[in-house]
């Protein structure tokens, strides 16, 4: 395993080193020490490497990740794994606002809680949160899946498109155009797979969740729905 001391070597050197791994590399396991809440750690990676961050991170850790597996042995600041394309990002602690924002692929696992706007504008990413999520989560979420083992805050899935939302606990309120939907066998199958890959299969069963999705009433403007906007 390669060890990178972020405090001593600096952010630019870290990302330069990790970007250079694109293509073939034998250096597949990396450890970052002394992150101390730095921003933009391990952003723009594009190689099938394993990166472990020993400590908590600032904004945008693993932003736009492709292929890499990034594990944060601490908590993550705002926008963790934003616009992720593929790969896996696992946060052992909590995640701040906008976790997985606009993510287009890959898997984001948050072992603790996620703050507001988790999965905002998600476009294909899969997110598994072991704890609770804050208000306005999955706002304008377009596609992908959000699984929440705990509770969801206010206005879940406001102005939702085609993302699939699964919540085991309570939902404080649903946002505009978001409704509870029937849980069909294919959803239970999807959920079982997500729980397994999200390291949560021992913690919850698919049958314990409710599914939420778009009512599709706001897809085309209608003056009679104006109060929903």
């Amino acid at each position, binding site marked *: 395993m390669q060890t990178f001391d972020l405090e001593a070597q600096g952010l630019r050197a870290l990302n330069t080193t990790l970007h250079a791994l694109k293509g073939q590399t034998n250096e597949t396991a990396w450890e970052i020490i002394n992150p101390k809440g730095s921003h933009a750690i391990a952003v*723009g990676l594009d190689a099938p490497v394993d990166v472990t961050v020993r400590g908590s991170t600032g*904004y945008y850790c693993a932003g736009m990740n492709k292929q890499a597996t990034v594990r944060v042995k601490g908590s993550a600041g705002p926008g963790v794994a934003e616009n992720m394309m593929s790969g896996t990002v696992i946060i052992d602690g909590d995640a701040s606002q906008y976790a997985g924002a606009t993510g287009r692929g890959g898997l984001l696992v948050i072992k603790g809680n996620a703050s507001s*706007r988790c999965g905002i504008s998600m476009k294909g990413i899969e997110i598994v949160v072991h704890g609770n999520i804050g208000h306005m989560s999955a706002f304008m979420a377009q596609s992908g899946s959000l699984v929440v083992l705990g509770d969801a805050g206010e206005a879940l899935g406001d102005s939702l498109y085609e993302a699939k939302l699964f919540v085991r606990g309570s939902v404080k309120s649903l946002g505009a155009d978001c409704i509870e939907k029937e849980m069909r066998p294919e959803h239970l199958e999807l959920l079982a797979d997500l729980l397994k890959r999200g390291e949560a299969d021992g913690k919850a069963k698919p049958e314990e969740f409710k599914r939420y999705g778009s009512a599709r009433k706001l897809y085309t403007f209608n003056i009679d729905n104006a109060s929903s906007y």
Partner: protein
Amino acid sequence: MSDFPHTPPRQSWTFSNDVNAEIRRAAATGIYDIRGGGSKRRLPHFDDLLFLGASISRYPLEGYREKCSTDVWLGTRFAKKPIHLEIPITIAGMSFGALSGPAKEALGRGASAAGTSTTTGDGGMTEEERGHSQTLVYQYLPSRYGMNPDDLRRADAIEVVVGQGAKPGGGGMLLGQKISDRVAKMRNLPQGIDQRSACRHPDWTGPDDLEIKILELREITDWEKPIYIKIGGARPYYDTALAVKAGADVVVLDGMQGGTAATQDVFIENVGMPILACIPQAVKALQDLGMHRKVQLIVSGGIRTGADVAKAMALGADAVAIGSAALIALGDNDPAYEAEYNKLGTTAGAYDDWHEGKDPAGITTQDPELYKRFDPVLGGRRLKNYLKVMTLEAQTIARACGKNHLHNLEPEDLCALTIEAAAMSGVPLAGTNWVPGKTGF
């Protein structure tokens, strides 16, 4: 008593025919008017400024012999690879979705032939524009449609869009008629729905966050790309200062004459400021921070001629951007299609229902039958010609003012025709030393 004639019919100024027609349309349809383009109001504009030219106190340069350079560097503050353009007239961001693929291709062809840049829009980067644009600016928008790190790295610069002159504070929209299969796939949306873009970015709020977002974009692209920040003409002094503070290489400032693919008419006509009022405030912010010419300023919103280019640069801009004018150069609103505009209930020059996707010129449409009409090679040549003409016009004026580079134009070369223009632009009313708010009459 003889009969008095009736008082002749008198139309109300407040309730004019246009106003009444809009009231009736709203009552009948239950939806506000949505249209493309920028403000159609008569606004204080570059037409209200004049150049003084040379005389005894200033001597001119020979029009056909003495050099007047036009090039511009953009992104010299932080980027490892700043952009060098031959002319200071760039093509503003316009989305694939709003425009057809061939129209984007034509913009790339024309801009590249003229030595300038094009810009993507709210729909991601297409092969048509990347392939035909020598220099391509990639917009980073609230919707993040099509956003991915590979395209970020394929771009020559990144433009973080905070606002747009046609709708400062508003998000974009692309109505169902234009959400074709290809557009839907690029945007991860169901086909045929009315698409609403967010007005705010999903993962940052305020200038302190923006600074960190820019750090992330620079780290992803290894600090190579210039980072532009585009703002609508709302509070240009403070927004420019905050953009500089957040780490911008370039500030793009768009006045309310700047076009949009589709927005509410009430928004276009009632929110934001004309570009004439915006430029001096942005320049002052840069000067107050000691960053004028270090952070470059690109301005847009109603640029039509080389005179407009020269006036914007004399007020302190480093470059300009054109959108609506570029579309007209391609063939938008061409009277050659008058009969078809009439069928759509409009006339050439006034057609602005771009969101409906029925553009007879085949530019603002996703209908294959319509966009086949448009020849991207010919369109590119027309755009190149237009850009070259504007450059020649600007050079003509600059030489007459004794300047050997367009960047040497200065406010002292100008006078204002109206009190309003003098107050907004900060140059004296013609024939006086009066700048309202600054000097006594």
